[in-house]
């Protein structure tokens, strides 16, 4: 009974130590070093985009205390992720925590290695924000992002890596990019060197739907098209200012974030059905999604 606290304390420190076998120090900016972690045993690493200020002479401090050089593979400012390739092999790949294993209220540790030694802070999962596809899986926590923790890992009570911590995406809150989005972005960066995102060519704002229609189609709002760029996929597909977009390729669009997440790289070059409200009538257009440059 009296050792429950000791058990908890040991479990937390064990979780830090286990995940720490994959957590590295990343020196790629003038100020203090940051953190990152191993993606593949043959030298791929992930870190935060905003801590990679210089692309030359990136140095990695490995968990065993040794140093190695790394090159930038690609970066995505939207999710604050960067992929590095280090000149080393035989690295320890973390055990990943899948998104559905993470619940609001769970204990989680932010773990970094900015000084070369492991450092950790403790908090709980405050909120989860999950898009219908893998483009936007974030966890918000109340962990303290100690200096140099960006690019480090959010670690579960069992020592699994929940995602990559960043202090740059949202002021005053600690955000973690969870494993589905990590995989999605890393795979795209490895394949294309950049993040491919679909392009429609519209400016939008959320708009509440008329009550009768909302009840009929089971959705409260859509996005109102405020502008259409000339020569854009939207213009070519016949979208007009004043149209309200309700769905893209069967995916419900209730706000701007839904629209962004519906335009993932996978749909580039494809002709998709776009459901709109025009003059009180629901219509469907076929639009070929472009690529954002």
């Amino acid at each position, binding site marked *: *009974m*009296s050792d*429950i*606290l*000791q058990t*908890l*304390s*040991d479990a*937390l*420190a064990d*979780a*830090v*130590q286990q995940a*720490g076998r994959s957590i590295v120090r990343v020196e790629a900016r003038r100020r*203090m070093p940051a953190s990152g972690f191993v993606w593949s045993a043959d030298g791929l690493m992930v870190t935060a985009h905003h801590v990679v200020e210089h692309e030359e002479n990136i140095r990695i401090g490995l968990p065993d205390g040794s140093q190695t050089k790394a090159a930038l593979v690609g970066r995505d400012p939207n999710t604050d992720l960067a992929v590095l390739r280090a000149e080393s092999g035989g690295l320890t790949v973390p055990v990943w925590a899948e998104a559905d294993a993470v619940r609001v209220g769970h204990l989680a*540790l932010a*773990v970094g290695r*900015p*000084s*070369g*030694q*492991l*450092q*950790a*802070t*403790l908090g709980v999962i405050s909120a989860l924000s999950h898009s219908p596809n893998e483009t936007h899986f974030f966890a918000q926590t109340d962990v*303290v992002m*100690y*200096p*140099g923790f960006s690019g480090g890992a959010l670690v579960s009570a069992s020592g699994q890596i929940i995602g990559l911590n960043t202090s740059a995406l949202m002021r005053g809150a600690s955000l973690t990019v969870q494993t589905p989005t990590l995989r999605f972005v890393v795979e795209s960066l490895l394949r294309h060197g950049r993040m491919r995102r679909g392009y429609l060519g519209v400016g939008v704002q959320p708009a509440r739907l008329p009550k009768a229609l909302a009840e009929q189609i089971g959705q409260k709002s859509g996005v109102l098209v405020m502008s259409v760029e000339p020569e854009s996929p939207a213009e070519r597909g016949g979208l007009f200012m004043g149209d309200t977009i309700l769905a893209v390729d069967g995916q419900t669009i209730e706000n701007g974030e839904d629209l962004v997440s519906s335009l993932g790289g996978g749909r580039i070059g494809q002709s998709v059905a776009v459901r709109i409200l025009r003059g009180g009538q629901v219509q469907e257009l076929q639009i070929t999604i472009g690529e954002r440059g």
Partner: protein
Amino acid sequence: MDNNLLQQFNDTLADTVERVQASLVQIVNGRGAGAGTIWHPDGLIVTNAHVVRGRHGLHVVLSGGQRLPAAVIAYDEPLDLAALSVEAAGLPTIALGDSRQVRPGQWVMAVGHPWGVIGAVTSGVVIGAGAQLPEVGQMQPGREWIALDLHMRPGHSGGPVVDSAGRLIGINTMITGPDVGFAIPVHVVKAFLKERLGTQKMAV
């Protein structure tokens, strides 16, 4: 899921805190109260140098409310440590832990009098320990600290930081942000007492 687990956890926390609070004192220095920790039953109390700096008429208030005049018997400004002596015997001392074995992520609690709230407890985990911590590493090279992920406030100074078993691992000393505090590792405190007081009052 298992409500008993959280209940046990809470009960254990409270039991541990109660033991620690018994050896916690207030140090009344004329402008407010700092905290101190009873090190030896014959009245040896450890606190921060900045809690007693330049003050006369120091008093120590024990957890039971007894108020005793105190004398500074050792003082080190750079280390921010001081030892006080009060006329007493059989005082409840704090159990000592091993600050050389501190692990990042381990559970810790700090006890003190934040904003004058007597014996208040805050808990969190060890961020890291040693001489290479980002915020303090440059201030005094080579000096060792324990960085703590917990809510530290004025009035915690001089109070104990304990591990999950209630053993002293450090003395609260400094706040660098609302959620980050620094403690002086207990092995540094031991060395300070040994150097300044010899071993006669060190039956630890």
